[in-house]
């Protein structure tokens, strides 16, 4: 998808509540080329109204055998609701996508369709 975005001159920026260190690890681990933004105090997330107060995560520290978690304890954390905004060169929002199932990524096809619709 990066190549298609480049074709339309769209740069990719992603923001989450991860700290700078966590974001840096994520970028290296997944070999990401985009700009990762760190919003650990959730200021921007709240500013945009994409806060999910009791989002389900899990704590793995509880029971481990040789580092493998044997029990995952659910815990609630505040995180961003996965949301995608397509912004044009004048800073005007052209398209918004929000998932209702946080496990699923924004479909690439849908994103590219929106990019084409906005910028051709």
């Amino acid at each position, binding site marked *: 998808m990066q190549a298609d975005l480049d074709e339309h001159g769209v740069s990719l920026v992603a923001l989450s509540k991860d700290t700078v260190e966590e974001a840096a690890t994520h970028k290296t681990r997944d070999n990401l080329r985009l700009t990762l933004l760190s*919003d650990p105090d959730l200021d921007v997330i709240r500013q945009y109204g994409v806060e999910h107060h009791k989002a389900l995560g899990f704590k793995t520290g509880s029971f481990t055998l040789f580092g493998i978690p044997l*029990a995952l304890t659910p815990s609630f954390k505040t995180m961003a609701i996965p949301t995608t905004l397509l912004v044009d060169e004048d800073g005007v929002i052209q398209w918004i996508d929000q998932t209702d199932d946080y496990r699923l990524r924004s479909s690439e096809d849908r994103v590219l369709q929106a990019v084409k619709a906005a910028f051709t």
Partner: protein
Amino acid sequence: MNTVAFAASATGFLAVMVAWGTYLATIPSGKVPARPVGWIILQLAGMATAVSAAVWSFRIGGSPGVAVIVPAVFAVMMGSTFFYFLSQRKTPIGKLRVKVGDTLPPFEVKTSDGPEFHTDSLAGKRTLLKFFRGGW
């Protein structure tokens, strides 16, 4: 110790862990299935096998022993957590404060590489801004 019961219980636990492991492996590449049917079946089969082994072992000769009970307990715990997570997958759409046609509200944050980022730097550029959950 009832070897058969232990083997069955351990296998059930293993099935649950394999289901978890392979399911979690779909996350980094973003290929989490909308309806994880295979995983659901494997989790249920694993839990059922482990619990059946413990129950059977108890029925045929008193206490099934730690070797049978422990994997069964963990299988049930881990399996239940899987289903609980699945049940919580719907995000509340919430109160998004921007809409199409709005100008992007400005903000300033740090990037993962260190330097500050301000939305002013996006002027004159087309951008896809993604809010994501981050580590959890």
